[in-house]
């Protein structure tokens, strides 16, 4: 069945079955998109995948309760499955929190999220790019013995919300990206280096830079060794600082705070970080799949400082959490995919860059550790307490200069404490690969973290 026809039938059926409820409302969220990825090894195509996928999520509000159901088939049977499923699920819900289906904002920002030039790049061109990226990576140094992964990918997705209160919004975005993972070997020593890129403008692609960064990362870390355990002054490189922010981004969710799952509960207006930190949530950035004119409930989005010069301005809200706290939504309702219930999530979430370039930060640190890699975030970090203890790699820094590479260490600390222990913020803001959210940071100089090594 065609989508509009399906939605019309769906709403009609829902109204027949539950329309007598005084607060009855229902909503469909849909997505449809295509994905492409090609990876190469020794110039040969290793993997090649093409996908068209989509689906439709349905939610219904009856007697104050919201129920959800979703499908990837739009046929007659799916109409009943969605309506019956969502109504049954609504009947199970006991939460007394007021639920919302939103009628729409007055106006929505116009964002450039789709670039027709990207669609003009055909598969052959992308295969050629992947081959080129591998060639460039291998050519960086004779010690780069192979690439572990080398790929180019593209996505194009359309998504939208339609509801019984008259909301009908949609957006379309596309993105091209790629990555190289270089393997460096010297004697028995092996190390890997990884770099990913993503762009909306094909003119911004710099494969040589991606190859160089991946290769340098692999080479520089050869012959790394642990340092003695102890407390170190630490420079978190931009990508690592972004990883830390992404791991603990849930502490800024009002939903978590209201449930006692974030220590930022009730701290709006207070200093929660050093003055040099400003944390932005900006849904209007270019080159990011996380940018959007409307959030998961259809509310118009806008950029905002969550932390401004150390002070917590606001937590991230959707309509439910904002209503609970008597504030306006920050338009951070998330619906990661059409099937998931509405939650709270950032869009493009990043620390605002400062003045100091990377070398100036090294200079300022003097003696300490530069951390260039952290692993184990899904287990070694506790999003409720803020505690983390993670495997790390990096370099010793002496007299403001990079010294020998370091590996097989862990760094441990607490995210809330790190916010207050940042001494300086770099000018080198960099973003991770965007998903439903996109995280970024400049390099951060941190007073002290615990290191386990020798």
């Amino acid at each position, binding site marked *: 069945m065609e989508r509009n026809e399906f939605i019309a039938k769906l709403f009609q059926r829902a109204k027949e079955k539950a329309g007598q409820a005084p607060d009855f409302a229902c909503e469909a969220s849909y997505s449809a998109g295509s994905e492409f990825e090609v990876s190469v090894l020794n110039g040969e195509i290793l993997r090649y995948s093409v*996908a068209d996928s989509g689906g439709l999520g349905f939610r219904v509000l009856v007697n104050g309760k919201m129920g959800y159901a979703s499908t990837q088939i739009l046929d007659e049977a799916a109409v009943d499955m969605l309506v019956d499923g969502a109504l049954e699920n609504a009947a199970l819900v006991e939460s007394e929190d007021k639920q919302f289906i939103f009628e729409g904002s007055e106006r929505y920002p116009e964002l450039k999220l789709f670039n027709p030039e990207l669609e003009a790049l055909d598969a052959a061109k992308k295969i050629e790019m992947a081959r080129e990226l591998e060639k460039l990576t291998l050519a960086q140094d004779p010690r780069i013995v192979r690439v572990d992964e080398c790929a180019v990918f593209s996505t194009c997705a359309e998504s939208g919300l339609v509801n019984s209160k008259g909301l009908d919004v949609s957006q379309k975005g596309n993105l091209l990206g790629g990555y190289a993972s270089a393997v460096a070997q010297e004697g028995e020593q092996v190390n890997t280096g990884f770099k990913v890129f993503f762009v909306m403008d094909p003119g911004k692609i710099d494969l040589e830079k991606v190859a160089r960064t991946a290769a340098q990362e692999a080479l520089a870390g050869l012959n790394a060794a642990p340092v003695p355990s102890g407390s170190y002054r630490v420079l978190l490189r931009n990508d690592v600082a972004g990883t830390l922010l992404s791991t603990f981004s849930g502490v800024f969710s009002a939903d978590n705070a209201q449930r006692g799952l974030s220590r930022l509960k009730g701290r709006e207006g207070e200093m929660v970080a050093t003055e040099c930190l400003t944390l932005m949530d900006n849904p209007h950035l270019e080159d990011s799949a996380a940018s959007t004119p409307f959030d998961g409930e259809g509310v118009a989005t806008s950029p905002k400082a969550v932390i401004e010069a150390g002070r917590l301005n606001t937590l991230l809200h959707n309509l439910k959490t904002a209503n609970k706290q008597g504030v306006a939504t920050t338009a951070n309702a998330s619906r990661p995919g059409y099937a998931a219930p509405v939650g709270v999530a950032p869009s493009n979430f990043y620390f605002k860059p400062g003045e100091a370039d990377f070398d100036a930060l090294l200079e300022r640190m003097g003696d300490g550790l530069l951390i260039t890699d952290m692993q184990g975030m899904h287990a070694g970090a506790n999003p409720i307490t803020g505690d983390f203890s993670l495997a790390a790699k990096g370099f010793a820094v002496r007299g403001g200069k990079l010294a020998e590479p370091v590996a097989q260490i862990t760094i441990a600390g607490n995210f809330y404490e790190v916010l207050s222990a940042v001494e300086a913020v770099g000018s080198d803001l960099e973003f991770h690969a965007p998903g439903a959210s996109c995280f970024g940071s400049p390099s951060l100089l941190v007073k002290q973290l615990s290191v386990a090594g020798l």
Partner: protein
Amino acid sequence: MILKSTAEQVLNEALKTGGDFAEIFCEDRRSGAVGLVDRRVENASTVRRHGAGIRVYRGLNSVYVHTNDTSLFGLTAAARKAADAVSGEACVGDIHLTQSLTANIHPVKAMPMDVAGARKAQLLKDMDLAARDVSPEIHQVRANLIYWDSDVLIANSEGLYTGDRRVYTRMACSAVAEGGGESQSGSASPGAMMGFELFEGRVDVAEQARKAARQAVTNLHAQPCPAGVMPVVIDGGFGGVIFHEACGHSLEAAAVAFGNSEFAGKLGEVIASPIVTAVDDGTLPGEWGSLNIDDEGTPTTRLVLIQDGVLRNYMIDRLNGRRMGMAPTGSGRRQDYTFAPTSRMRNTFIAAGSDDEAEIIASCGDGLYAKSMGGGSVNPVTGEFNFAVAEGYLIRGGKIDRPVRGASLIGRGSEVLRKIDRVGSNMWMAQGMCGASSGSIPTNVGQPMIRVTDMTVGGR
């Protein structure tokens, strides 16, 4: 789901441009989740996923196309897209499929989608009450039930036409303890390849919830773990995540076939302490990581990976088997139809040894006792792994001393396997979701209590 004649047509289409192997994986999956937080059922959802993936090989090149449209028209279009990416001599196929029936060794008594909502809500409340009953310090409990029922059909150009139905049920309970301006958490999340009969005898939801709550309370009163190098005793069950990360991933053909594993080319060599035997077994009835057939239609197997310290087998999927010149081991797995399969683990464990648990701790001197593990990760190329300790205690003079929190363990797989100096006699398993290039799949990890002579322990 799709007719044999449809599959034959689609496979022929997929091979039209010179591919030498084609496969259709069609899946219809219904899943549901019910969650409780703040003492109340907060959300309930139902999801139906449906689609097919088509794979074409030419030599060692592999093309994967997936779509939601499983009509003859949709599948033929997808097959054409796959064929377009393969360039070779055109050939006229004549594929004839022969149906084979898969014996189900995992019978299901209570299909999760049929279980009444009220019963699901009651199970969640049982968890909530049991956890809160452990201590007034328990301030928040999240309880979830997740379940899915996946019907798959696999057909390939070698004539295979078969299917399988996989039903999974899992609970998850996490408890947060608060006191003295601090909060700490604990969790438990057992599951099985079963229906809701899981909760009649095999898993007691209240006991699991109490376990999560006790862990949270223990952690609340624990000191930060000191950092350093020390002997580590790792308890059974989820402790097996050490083998999963430190060794398992590096024995998957996906790493071995490209030399991206520290264990590549080492079959028949000693890679572990002689007291270590490790197994990857897909045949255990009802277990979380079990299968009837893998996602390429190959019957599942029991595979001894390491026998008395000697490397015996890799886990091999069809494509990497071609690459390595070795037969597949029924290890081809994928999250769903949107992923091409690759070699993955199933129920992977260190087999029971002969050491006494009390002696393992008593003879340890000073060290760390990791009673319960969190998850971890590994870089298979270098073998560097890390994982988190969810509940740990310091060992002082051979006795379990005070609880410590925030510990993590790091090392290199090839080194840690040689440093295992004790293997206990009581092996058990626990459930996890394992993420890799073919998505997130259910796997069991397991081991008896083991001891590693020295490991780097991260803490503050």
